[in-house]
């Protein structure tokens, strides 16, 4: 099995401040990695780089062997499921929220609807299809956002502080789903957390941030 990600001499910063400086980082396909560090350590920034939302100031990122460039960045983004911290749901129904990403990929309406229903079912949200996204609780919104990302069947799942603002029951459910995808379907999972002890599952590898001069493995 090859590398999902390979980062070589990657640097990223805001203004003069350097937030990320990675000499070498390799994440294998099917790996479960936790990015741990205090607030401001660059966890979100690193995830943004891995989701191809932010461009590094210098260095090279390879994704399943493919170098990231301006030309292929949208295609590569479509192979990643990214759950941002406090996710945003579009001002429409839950179903339309989940179907949007699928429709972008040219999946026909009927199939997209089925996949949306299955994703909701997996996260314990059956029957939520026609609900308006603006009327959901914090935990429900978070689960819908995860369902939206997972419905796309990405090769890599990136989760930024996924259990923040979540009740215990929702957090456990989410952990279970993520773990199942990693163990049984060999999805690469990279999550950020400032408190690893809040997670009942053990990741395969923990990367401590800030990532200045990081060299792993």
């Amino acid at each position, binding site marked *: 099995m090859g590398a999902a990600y390979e980062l070589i001499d990657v640097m990223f910063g805001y203004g003069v401040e350097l937030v990320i400086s990675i000499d070498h980082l390799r994440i294998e396909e099917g790996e479960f990695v936790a990015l741990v560090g205090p607030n401001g350590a660059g966890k979100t920034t690193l995830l943004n780089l891995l989701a191809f*939302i932010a461009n590094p100031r210098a260095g090279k990122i390879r994704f399943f062997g493919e170098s990231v460039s301006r030309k292929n960045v949208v295609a590569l983004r479509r192979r990643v499921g990214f759950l941002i911290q406090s996710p*945003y749901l*579009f*001002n429409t129904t839950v179903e339309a929220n989940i179907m*949007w*990403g699928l429709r972008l*990929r040219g999946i026909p309406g009927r199939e997209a609807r089925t996949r949306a229903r299955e994703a909701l079912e997996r996260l314990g949200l059956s029957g939520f299809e026609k609900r308006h996204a603006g009327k959901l609780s914090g935990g429900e919104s978070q689960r819908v956002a995860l369902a*939206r990302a997972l419905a796309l069947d990405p090769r890599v799942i990136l989760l930024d502080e996924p259990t923040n603002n979540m009740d215990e029951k929702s957090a456990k459910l989410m952990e279970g789903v993520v773990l199942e995808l990693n163990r049984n379907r060999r999805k690469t999972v990279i999550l950020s957390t400032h408190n690893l002890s809040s997670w009942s599952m053990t990741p395969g590898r923990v990367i401590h941030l800030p990532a200045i001069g990081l060299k792993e493995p």
Partner: protein
Amino acid sequence: MQFFIESAISAFELIVSFDPEVYFIIWTSLRVALVALLFAALAGVPMGLLIALNRFTGKQAVLLVLNTLMALPTVVVGLFFYALLSRRGPLGTLELLFTPNGLSLGLFALALPLVLHLTIAAIEDLDPRIVITCKGLGANARQTAWKVLQEARFAVTSALVIAFGRVISEVGIAMMLGGNIRGFTRTMTTAIALETSKGEFVLGLALGFVLLAVAFGVNALLFLLQRRR
């Protein structure tokens, strides 16, 4: 007071009797305003989207110019386009002066900065997580822009409603570019001004009622849209 009441009753009778002249004036007003608004929307909404979603040098200057243009007196717009469209003007060969299309052009210039400014404000007011969410779901720049516009739909529609209110009720441009020609370019506002100056208070008042009804309709629509947001 008696005079006002009698005139109001006569005006009301004129409206319900479906007087052809009154309705032609109403139709002309609505037509030129809607044509102007259509083109202002087609140009202003995508431009607003582009300005709001991108950072570029001089953006603040663009916003400042738009703010200034929003406050431009309608007679100045009328004067400028009169110079452009008059026979000796650079666009004189188009023969648009004193035509409904020439009038729509002036109203378009009045509506455009308003549509642009309010679209930019509507989009900049949106949750900043929308763009990152769209990108994260695999949208390209065009798909992201379209989604952003969808999220701002109520505010952008409000912008169009406000712009319509502005163009339907203005008089300076209608007078200077339309010429207030009976049965051709006479609008509600120019007719009110003319008829009142002639002492024909009834027709002016009848059109005033219609204009008020339009203003009420526009505001009711705006109110409903704001409630939906």
